[in-house]
């Protein structure tokens, strides 16, 4: 298939599948809480409803930035989805590499926070600065993991990294990256920026209707893309087999992550930062193994 076409398929898949994945996670969590839980398509229903509803702008807000935020956030994750191979192995791989991917996800967070600040809501401000604090701490851990994986694979382009060579450093790096996928997905206990009972969903407090829908979709796509990169690191083959293994692994991963999420309380920001600061050691180990050639 032509890369353009396959990219299109991938983007459509990501957009369609990301809310479904969230629905599955909600279902899993509900079952663990001895509830029946919402239908798996619930996140889709929510999203459709949100997209049908009008959005409100707080009167004290900085309109342009407030409107821009969800649009840029979603564009950046969608852009990332064009060059990360998801359902189909071929994509616009030459558009970006792992660094570009990391930056685009950070860009989404950045604009989430800027949107929060633009709404001038005190809770949004608190949530936004927490979001960025966490972003910094995440990058601290992630940077070492990325360096380790880069050394291990001998490059940062996806052509070199997907799949990773079978080495000790790759194994450590992938495991550490899996933890970062959990953290970056803003899951409990790392959801300090959008803590509902504390700061009323933080940066999202003033977003409504469509703009909220875009923000939610951004979050879903972001989680899916993180899973995708993780899976790409390890899936060694291509073709139909790859696609089916990929989808199956996505479902399993999201169920496992949701199950983890059901058994945590929320961290304080400082606790989350401290955890990530210490977790950088794992990235360092990965890097060290890679430099030693293992």
């Amino acid at each position: 298939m032509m890369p353009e076409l396959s990219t299109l398929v991938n983007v459509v898949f990501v957009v369609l599948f990301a809310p479904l994945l969230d629905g599955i996670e909600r279902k899993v969590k509900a079952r663990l809480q001895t509830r029946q839980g919402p239908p798996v398509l619930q996140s889709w229903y929510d999203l459709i409803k949100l997209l049908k509803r009008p959005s409100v702008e707080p009167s004290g807000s900085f309109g342009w930035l407030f409107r821009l935020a969800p649009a840029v956030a979603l564009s950046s994750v969608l852009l990332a989805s064009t060059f990360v191979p998801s359902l189909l192995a071929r994509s616009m791989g030459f558009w970006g590499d792992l660094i570009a991917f990391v930056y685009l996800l950070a860009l989404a967070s950045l604009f989430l926070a800027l949107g929060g600040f633009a709404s001038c809501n005190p809770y949004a401000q608190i949530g936004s600065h927490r979001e960025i604090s966490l972003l910094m701490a995440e990058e601290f851990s992630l940077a070492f993991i990325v360096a380790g994986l880069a050394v291990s694979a001998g490059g940062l382009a996806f052509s070199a990294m997907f799949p990773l060579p079978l080495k000790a450093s790759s194994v450590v790096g992938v495991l550490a990256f899996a933890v970062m996928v959990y953290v970056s997905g803003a899951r409990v206990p790392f959801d300090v920026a959008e803590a509902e009972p504390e700061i009323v969903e933080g940066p999202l407090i003033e977003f409504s209707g469509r703009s909220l829908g875009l923000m939610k979709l951004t979050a879903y796509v972001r989680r899916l893309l993180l899973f995708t990169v993780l899976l790409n690191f390890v899936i060694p083959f291509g073709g139909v087999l790859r696609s089916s293994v990929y989808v199956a692994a996505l479902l399993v991963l999201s169920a496992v992550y949701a199950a983890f999420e059901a058994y945590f309380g929320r961290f304080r920001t400082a606790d989350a930062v401290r955890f990530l600061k210490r977790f950088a050691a794992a990235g360092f180990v990965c890097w060290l193994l890679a430099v030693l050639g293992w």
Partner: protein
Amino acid sequence: MGRSTLEGRFRVIDVSPDEVAEVVRELFEDGCYYATGMGVDERPLNGRFAVYHAINCPKRGVYVILRLTAPENRPSVPSITPVLRGAEWAEREAHDMVGVTFENHPNLERLILPEDWPDGVYPLRKDFPYNRKMAGTEGTAGVRGERHDEATMSVPLGPYHPLLHEPEYFELYVREDRIVGADYRGFHVHRGMEKLAESRMTLNQIPFLAERICGICGCTHSAAYCQAVEEAAGVEVPERALYIRSLMLEVERIHSHLLWFGVACHLLGFDSGFMHFWRAREYVMDIAELITGNRKTYGINLVGGVRRDLSGEKIQKTLKLLELAEGESREVIDNVVGMKELIARMEGVGVLRRKDAREIGVVGPVARASGIDTDVRRDHPYAAYGDLDFKVPVYRGCDVLSRFLVRVDETFESFSLVRQILENLPDGEIINEEYSLPYMEFGLGSTEAPRGEDVHMVLTGGENQVYRWHPRAPTYNNLPAVPLMLEGEDVADAPIIIASIDPCFSCTDHVSIVDAGSGRVLWRGPLLEGVERLRR
């Protein structure tokens, strides 16, 4: 067969204005603390206003009631706030609602009524019709940022913050993610209940009104009210009724504590905990529905006894449900206690030192978590508690975790109490309706609500009515400690700290309070200014 459990529960002393300060000081030095106070418009009787101060002497198992009066034309009595800080709000409340002035009160500002309530109109005076509506509906409290400077941030918490499903307003001053101060504005749930009771309600309707003080711990309010009237009228209550009352009070405690555990888990971001606790709690709700016909606001208490009896079949079913509830609660609590991260979020957070706790006069689990051994059920036995065997858990951690653990222990004590009650339930009548209501007799009833000591004062009014009824909920005493607990804590911990006293604002707000972390109350000036600005 019957008995009044409340004999010698209180002593009313008429004091002269000159000696009241001295008496209060002596009582205070004797280890007593201020329980509650009320102003009464006694003009139709004797042309005077009266103030009743109830002071709890747990060591002697007695409440001392100091009664002060003042003539109609000069309604002014000396304030006891300079001697006993705990009296501040009660006096201001009396000032606000009845129009009694307190000499030498440090801060006799408006307390309960909205800011746009006209001056000189006192709802609890007998010449004020309970249903008169006052003009003006503009807002009052708002983000004032009184103690704000360029390096601090005012964070409004409420009235519609998801933390509390009740309309209350805290204003936190936050600097670098730490809380440096907190203000509180209550009153949102002031529904004019006391006035309603003395104007439109009959004696035996008020228990139902009292239940609606609070949807969580309503039974304890109606029980306290009934005890107060029974005390005033000298009603003999049948033993079986007392046991059933205790039963419902304990069922209520279990449901309230399980509810709190769930909410605490939710506030700590552990939603699974919330779900599991509430699943366990559902059995307790079933028990309540089984016994009383309603899941809450049981409507079980009446003056002289209770409304519904318990059959043997119901007892068996209850025991079965109790087993389920206890088993599941224990499982969930064991799991939660095993979660290190969750416990770490409670440990050392929201510390209220024993000294502060004593000075403020906190009650219930908050006091017991700060090492104060107090429990109305033991100190002033009522209902069937004199016959029952239970322990009063006391922890010395002074933090949120201790409050959590106190409630854990209490929950399981309550399971055992319910079992004891069901096993030892005496036979006999469930209500004594053969009593006559004296005129202008004072009565006081107190119970240990899930949140702490709950005090009701009643002046009977003959004609099947009350002349004056004044309830005081435990949150009233516990709230002033919250700013102290909040100071210096991470802003992320504010919800769990506020929740750690298990605040029940609707209980408190029929009267309500104001507290500012600084001790100052800052409503009037800037507030009206703010209202003006909003209008423009």
